[in-house]
């Protein structure tokens, strides 16, 4: 007994030894920069002279001078960015989930060429976001784009639409590209969940002659729901921090500017590191609270995960 516990202790010691390099690196490249961003959020730092700053308290977040309100919480552009981010996240993740389930159900059937179809579905996922944004930018081109050509020859639109420039369609374009790019992720995760289901309950349902749509909603969906929820959360957290696709597809467009895009514009383009860091901090808090809320509601136990 005494020997076993000394063995366990030795194992624990070496475990920490193995963890140390990783933890040190993470502390340097994630913990420290995050902490500095929090601190910058309370200063008037400027990108041209990053060292020379002074603390300004909560002024970047909220301040009132002579009855006039300042700070992010009184900044209409910030609130527009918050709204855009939420709108983008809700619509694109919902569409991706529904389309992903449909694709997964198709791929779960036995048919000729299934391997090829699955390979084809993976292609959008493999393409870098910047490249997919550029490809769609070209397809959505107002004068020479194939989408306008297609829609006009089908008689769906009368004149070319400036998809990415028009305030009404810019967000539609961004969501379209995002849905195209990330539906494969949802489909693959859903497919993996579907393939782990026991087949006997389907046999029973088929023998009883229950309509397949009813089987899906009564049997399949409840069974894959836990896996689906995890995928939705992963995607939603990803969507809340969206940057690349919007930066490339609709640059400087207030109708699609998300929190990440707005914060980077403040930090780099306007060089206002203090104000921009405050915006980054708020975005971080939004995502942190989303994760915590999910953990509380879902009661995910990470330590025992998988068993």
């Amino acid at each position, binding site marked *: 007994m005494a020997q076993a516990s000394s063995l366990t202790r030795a*194992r*624990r010691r*070496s*475990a920490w030894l*193995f*963890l140390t*390099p*990783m933890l040190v690196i*993470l502390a*340097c*490249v*994630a913990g420290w*920069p*995050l902490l*500095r961003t929090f601190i910058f959020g309370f200063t008037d730092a400027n*990108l041209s002279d990053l060292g020379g700053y002074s603390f300004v308290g909560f002024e970047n977040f909220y301040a009132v001078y002579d009855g006039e309100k300042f700070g992010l919480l009184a900044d209409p552009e910030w609130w527009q960015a918050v709204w855009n981010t939420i709108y983008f996240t809700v619509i694109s993740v919902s569409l991706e989930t529904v389309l992903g389930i*449909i*694709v997964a159900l*198709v791929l779960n059937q036995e048919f000729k060429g299934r391997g090829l*179809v699955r*390979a*084809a579905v*993976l*292609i*959008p996922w*493999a393409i*870098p*976001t*910047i*490249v997919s944004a*550029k*490809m*769609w930018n*070209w*397809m959505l081109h107002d*004068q*020479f784009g*194939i989408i306008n*050509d297609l829609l006009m020859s089908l008689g769906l639109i009368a004149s070319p639409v400036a998809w990415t420039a028009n305030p009404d369609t810019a967000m539609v374009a961004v969501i379209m590209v995002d849905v195209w790019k990330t539906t494969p*992720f949802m489909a693959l*995760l859903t497919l*993996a*969940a579907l393939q782990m289901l026991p087949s006997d309950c389907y046999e029973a349902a088929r023998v009883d002659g229950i309509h397949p749509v009813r089987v899906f909603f009564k049997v399949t969906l409840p069974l894959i729901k836990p*896996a689906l929820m*995890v995928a939705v959360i992963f995607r939603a957290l990803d969507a809340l*921090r969206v940057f690349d696709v919007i*930066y490339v597809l609709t640059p400087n467009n207030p109708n699609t500017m998300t929190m*990440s895009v707005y*914060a*980077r514009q403040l*930090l*780099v383009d306007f060089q206002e*590191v203090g104000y921009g*860091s405050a915006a980054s901090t708020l975005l971080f808090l939004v*995502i942190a609270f989303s*994760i915590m809320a999910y953990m509380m509601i879902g009661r*995910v136990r*990470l*330590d025992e*995960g998988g068993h």
Partner: protein
Amino acid sequence: MNRNVKSLMMKAGFYLLVAAIVIFAVFPFYYAILTAFETGSALFDVNYLPESFSFSNYLSVFEGQPFGRNIFNSIFVSVMVVALSLLMGVTASYALARVKFAGRGLLLVTILSVSMFPQVAVLSGMFELIRAVGLYNSMFGLAISYMMLTLPFTVWILTAFMRELPRELEEAAVMDGASPWTVITRVFLPVMWPAMVTTGLLAFIMAWNEFLFALTFTLTNEQRTVPVAIALISGASQFEMPWGNIMAASVIVTVPLIVLVLIFQRRIVSGLTAGAVKG
């Protein structure tokens, strides 16, 4: 008879759905390849089938900017961070998956939350750090920032894989008095290499596609990675975008990725599901 017609209709509808999925998934890339082969006025005539085969876009994309150098940069920085992440990831995930110790759950949650950080939340701090160590506008500076993305991801996925391995695997070695380092190198590495290939590939794709850090922490054309180079290809004016060049560059950097993904299809799916479903 009626039943036959109905099942035939169902079948036709199913294959129609399959066709729609395939077209939706593949068409944008197909159209990029089509465009990359077109020059002059052919570029601005919408066509659905290939009409011209000119390689001039593929050549001129290397002339207008240091695109060869950009490709080298992307490969260099991605390989570097993948190697470092795997090295640290495999030992760390052994500790996290096979050894029980106080605070393990909390540590796992922390690592997972780092991989969910919005990149922009560390942007100003990371900028200051990279400038302080004198690596602004350098591939090494970029590698430092990429570790924040690839390391927690690698540890997380490898831990999920490592957990699945049977207890008996290491028990015999531990009983024989093998050190943990021996257990990792002699017992786990031989069975872990498929998982390492998967994780390495996913981390490589992550680093290869990264945009925000590469855009912010590099300044000159020579130091840019591929995604930034493509995003910044521009013409003489907003109305003279060299779409042929952009599409050629896109095809060049995407084809190797697609080939890799298709070869390692099953592995990638297992890696993605290990990372997400096991959470």
